[in-house]
């Protein structure tokens, strides 16, 4: 029981981690690119890195945080313009090639020793250099082990049957939620929306009590970062929902289906694609800023592999859906930690040592991505009918 509880705790911590939220924001941006507009952007990590650099470097050099945010977004904006201007008139593949190379260029420039004063080269910028203006905004007080008046660390301690009932309830909540989301119109009408909201809140509270989440090690005000990060995820989800239900969102999906048809209807396809690239890139920059808040700005932590994690999360949750990026990111990171801890706990060290379990978890993730694409291309929340004719 204790091993299982340990694994579940680890998964919960990862699922709720602000970095998971940060990736979820970047995936929301990628969803606009790939899911709704059909732009194959394989450089989402570069948007994140630029956002992070813009924010961290300016705060580090004594500029106010607002200016830092503006510079982070500005960098991503300019990056999107530069990438989009030559490639968006060409076939989609070219954008893929250009984005992946540009992302590598950004990362290598960040690593370059010439810019040590700004980027800290390969060592990166330690979080302590730029985090303070953000943490000082906290109204969680010390916020170390209590969330508001609740001290939840020992609620279910020791009582196995309480936990089992709790898990069953959580799973039931999740299943109902996912089914309602897949059927669509989950938020149509006040009653429906209230039911959904209640389910979500009950589920989250149960989870909190079932899996006490230890504070993050880094002396960061953990709950404040978590609160802001997940708040931003919900805000971004809302923005995307508002965008894609509009005629603008309809245009995006039209462009994904057939650009020439949209052109023949008198729409400026280039400008719409550019808008989509920029909006998604700005989400990426925001994700990058959140990503480095509890950690440090390291160019290598935001490389190709992060982009591929984003794609896995997106395809897992369901491309071109509103909640797909959110669900996909949580499941992806929780599942990876689950695999890693399970392998570490049950596979003897002689077969697989600790370092290998880390690699093993990534291998399983890769295989999982392949299986998703082959057997369930629409992801968990995706609409199969939207994909069926898309041969």
């Amino acid at each position, binding site marked *: 029981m204790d091993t299982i509880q340990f694994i579940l705790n680890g998964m919960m911590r990862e699922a709720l981690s602000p970095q998971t939220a940060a990736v979820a924001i970047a995936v929301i941006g990628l969803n606009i690119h790939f899911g709704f507009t059909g732009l194959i952007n394989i450089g989402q990590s570069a948007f994140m890195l630029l956002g992070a650099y813009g924010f961290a470097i300016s705060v580090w050099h004594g500029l106010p945080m607002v200016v830092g945010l503006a510079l982070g977004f500005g960098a991503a904006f300019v990056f999107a313009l530069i990438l989009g201007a030559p490639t968006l008139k060409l076939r989609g593949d070219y954008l893929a090639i250009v984005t992946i190379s540009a992302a590598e260029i950004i990362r290598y420039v960040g690593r370059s020793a010439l810019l040590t004063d700004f980027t800290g080269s390969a060592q990166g910028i330690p979080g302590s250099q730029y985090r303070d203006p953000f943490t000082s905004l906290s109204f969680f007080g010390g916020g170390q082990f209590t969330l508001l008046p609740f001290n939840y660390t020992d609620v279910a301690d020791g009582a196995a049957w309480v936990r089992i009932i709790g898990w069953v309830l959580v799973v039931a909540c999740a299943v109902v939620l996912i089914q309602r989301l897949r059927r669509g119109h989950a938020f149509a009408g006040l009653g429906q929306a209230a039911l959904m909201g209640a389910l979500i809140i009950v589920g989250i509270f149960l989870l909190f009590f079932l899996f006490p989440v230890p504070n993050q090690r880094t002396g960061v005000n953990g709950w404040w970062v978590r609160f802001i990060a997940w708040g931003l995820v919900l805000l971004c989800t809302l923005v995307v929902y508002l965008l894609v239900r509009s005629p603008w969102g309809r245009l995006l999906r039209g462009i994904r289906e057939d650009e020439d048809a949209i052109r*023949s*209807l008198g*729409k400026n396809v280039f400008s719409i694609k550019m808008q989509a690239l920029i909006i998604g890139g700005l989400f990426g920059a925001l994700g990058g800023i959140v990503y480095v808040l509890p950690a440090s700005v390291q160019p290598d932590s935001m490389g190709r592999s992060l982009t591929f994690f984003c794609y896995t999360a997106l395809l897992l949750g369901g491309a071109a859906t509103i909640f797909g990026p959110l669900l996909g990111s949580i499941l992806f990171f929780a599942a990876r930690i689950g695999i890693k801890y399970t392998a570490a706990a049950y596979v003897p060290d002689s077969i697989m040592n600790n370092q290998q379990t880390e690699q093993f978890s990534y291998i399983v993730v890769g295989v999982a991505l392949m299986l998703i694409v082959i057997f369930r291309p629409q992801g968990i929340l995706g609409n199969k009918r939207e994909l069926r*004719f898309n041969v």
Partner: protein
Amino acid sequence: MSDQMASPSVAPRGLADPAARRELVSGFEATPGSGKPDPILVVDNIVRQFGGMTAVDVQHLEVQRGIITALIGPNGAGKTTFFNLITGFDKPTSAGKGAHWAFDGRTLDKTSASSVARAGMVRTFQLTKALSAMTVIENMMLGAQDQAGENLFKSMFRGTWRKQEREIEAKADELLARFKLHEKKDDYAGSLSGGQRKLLEMARALMSDPKMIMLDEPMAGVNPALTQSLLGHIQSLRDEGMTVLFVEHDMHVVRHISDWVAVMAEGRLVAEGPAESVMSDQAVIDAYLGAHHDTDLGDDALLSDETMEELAEQVAAEEAEREAEEEAEGLR
């Protein structure tokens, strides 16, 4: 229901009457590139080369406003390429070197495909471009012009586009009813049959209130029953005052509905005239059937050396003539 739908949305110009059209058309000169009294589209000196091959070389073409003009020609005559050129989907090789075309008085030499559509010249495609993963009604609503909700900044605030959206949907409903697609409104366009997709594409093009609609092989792959209704729709568009230019292979269709026919062969405009008479034009017969079409190749008598030699001589003579012609042109 359909009577009410057929009520004209554009003021008729008196061209709904066949006699009036015949009278109008009889005034046109039946030569390639002839002038028309009220041309909506004027094309000059459009050349498109793919490597060494000249796909399109049209010196002059005028399309009369308010009638149905058919553009016919054998396979590879350059009809679709010509369509692509004037709608901005392709750029003429002669761009900047005398290529010039104007729609409704507006020069289109350097205009993008989307601006051409906004100017009022909307096209459909030979291989239908229905947006399969979107519903029929979404397809239709994409066709409407000047939507406030398509502006990124307004799109997030429903209040700014809700009213317009309702109007657009009403208009789309009306058109869908007219094209008998109304029951399919919420189906994915990918689940429609080939003919229904052609109808949808035509209806979607009409959402933008075009002045002229260009149909690229609207009957290709459509069953005979649906062909009838498609023809009816095209004619009713004309009767409402819209100009129609369409590419077609099927001579029966062309003869049935077109008021004026332009014939292309090997990239050039070889003949123009009313449907009844243009078919008997020698250039058209040559282009379509080959100059030796009345020789029966299945006839055993042909296998005699004598006839073969005769044919070979004929062909050689024609070739020499053609070369001489080309040389003369080159000297010019």
